[in-house]
């Protein structure tokens, strides 16, 4: 059993701009349409050039740090996504299928999976450890597990991001993500904060698990493999304690309980 604190949350999709709007959506069914992505942390000129995937990550990471009232240069990062920047992959593979093969140097250096933590480090001046991971369909649960173990073993806050942008047509058959979704969990070792959002407990055990069903309001995220922690977020948004099982691979599951009164 692993115990740790959830001290900040951030989330974004085209139908909600932040955690407060997510809570409103979950409790009242009122969602917004076509929410713009405008991360304040990135200077406006840089913002125009930054890829969507980077902007989504920076936005939710910044939200989570603000909720926790934690300086953004003081947290380790575990960024995750199944496929990384699907738009840049599409651009690179399209360009390389032509003659002559010409690729943009900026797009190439933005194509690394750790582009988002790289921009975060540059923007915030953070020298902290930063990782970028994938575990295919289990990316979101493995990222949460990786970040939790790091928070406990290194006794440091860790910002875990799980997100996917929409897939271009050619990649739809292999990574069918239709609507972008991003979430950041700011995790800390037990005892770190006097006022955590929740206490999380994990157990990892052999055995299969089904993905918990998404509620009706989340139908458009069903194809987004990085949105599979939505049932946990929805439970937190409603102010309910949670006790959920998720697969971390075909033979192993993680049982996550969240208690909001800090007990």
């Amino acid at each position, binding site marked *: 059993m*692993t115990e740790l604190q959830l001290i900040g949350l951030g989330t974004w999709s085209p139908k909600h701009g932040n955690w407060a709007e997510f809570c409103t959506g979950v409790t009242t069914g009122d969602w917004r349409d076509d929410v713009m992505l405008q991360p304040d942390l990135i200077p406006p000129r840089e913002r125009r050039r930054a890829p969507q995937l980077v902007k989504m990550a920076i936005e939710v990471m910044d939200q989570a740090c603000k909720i926790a009232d934690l300086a953004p*240069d003081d947290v380790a990062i575990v960024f995750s*996504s*199944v*496929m*990384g920047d699907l738009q840049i*992959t599409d651009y*690179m*593979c399209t360009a*390389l*299928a032509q003659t002559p*093969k*010409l*690729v943009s*140097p900026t797009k*190439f*250096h*933005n*194509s*690394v*999976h*750790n*582009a988002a*933590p*790289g*921009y975060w*480090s*540059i923007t915030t*001046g*953070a*020298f*902290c*450890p*930063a*990782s*970028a*991971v*994938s*575990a*295919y369909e289990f*990316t979101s649960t*493995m990222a949460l*597990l*990786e970040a939790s*173990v*790091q928070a*406990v073993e*290194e006794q440091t806050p860790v910002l875990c991001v799980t997100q996917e942008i929409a897939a271009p*047509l*050619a*990649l*739809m*058959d*292999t*990574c069918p993500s239709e609507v972008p979704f991003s979430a950041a969990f700011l995790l800390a070792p037990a005892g770190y904060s006097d006022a955590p959002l929740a206490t999380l407990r994990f157990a*990892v055990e*052999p055995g299969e698990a089904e993905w918990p069903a998404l509620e009706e309001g989340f139908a458009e995220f069903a194809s987004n493999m990085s949105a599979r922690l939505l049932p946990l977020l929805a439970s937190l948004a409603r102010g309910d304690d949670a006790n959920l099982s998720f697969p971390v*691979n075909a*033979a*192993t599951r993680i049982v996550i309980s969240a208690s909001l009164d800090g007990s």
Partner: protein
Amino acid sequence: MRLSITHYSATSAAGTGLAALRESLATRQSGLRRNDFPDCDLDTWIGRVPGVEDVVLPAGLEHLQSRNNQLAWLGLQQDSTLDAIAALAERLGPSRIGVVMGTSTSSIGRTEEAYTQLEASGRMKPEYRQPEVHNLHSPGIFVAAVTGITGPSLTISTACSSSAKVFATATRWIKHGLVDAALVGGVDSLCLSVLYGFNSLELVSSEQCRPFDRDRGGINIGEAAGYAILTRRDLAPDAELLLAGYGESSDAYHMSHPHPEGKGAIYSMSRALERAAMAPGEVGYVNLHGTASKANDKVETYALAERFTDTTLVSSTKAWTGHTLGAAGILESVIAIDTLETGLLPGTLNCEHTDPEFRFPVMTDNVEKTIDCSMTNSFGFGGNNASLVFRRRDD
């Protein structure tokens, strides 16, 4: 927490398996060759592993076909690695072992190929619709499937530090009790994305790369697969070789240029030494990132000068293998670990003239010397750094 290293192996242009790698290093025979990668007309040299395209994946895993998985499979078949994993799984149970792989571009070579023959509708042809291949976890999926390991599996992709960071993650997993042992590794294979991508940044050399030479003209791209088995020390009490420490950091500077004073590199080396509870003077050899790019090599000497004195010997082995990107961490870890075993410290190949801007001397000739501790550095795009400390047991 120190871990036992019970097995290691690497496959690169400098040799398929450990014996061939040792031979190349001892005889100073580079594995680089003039670029002959299909559909690539760039004037450069590459570190291509012979015969990767002829490797046949095991029956039942044909759906994982990609050059990257072919290289992963070739690497796994060297040095009795599969036997070592099978014995460990038999002893601990497959669910008590984790798989942590590193890669920069995963199986994107296969995605590139699919894009050259898309259907008129814009979709991939049916034979290319391989969901478990066109994603960043492809090496983790392949290695778990082929070895039968069922514990947690993860792929780390932080550009050129990817398969150095796998050692840090595995240590935390084992310390936490999530698993008792881990198969760590890295696989990156040649593909058009990295060849043309690095070329667009004007970082690719038209001659054999010359790390730390005054006249170095950039990098040669290479490919490699490597693996190591790490266990809790009580599970391998006789193991001589240990992972003693790891350090990870970010540069907070630029996406494709290192911090001008090597600040991130200093942090990663310092954190690794701190975790290992060792003084810099105890380190006998450091296998450097040493890519042969103008900026990296200069800045890496700045960082070394902050932490080490010249009693520590340092070199780059990239003129043997090319820069194997996401596999560089594991390949150069294997080289650094093996110096403890062989006492052969490889001097930097192709380095003839020292650069007056350097602040730390880099060894150019091979040295035979018994050492107790070695290190390796891996620095990646996005300003992502990792350093590892290996040592012979001292208890």
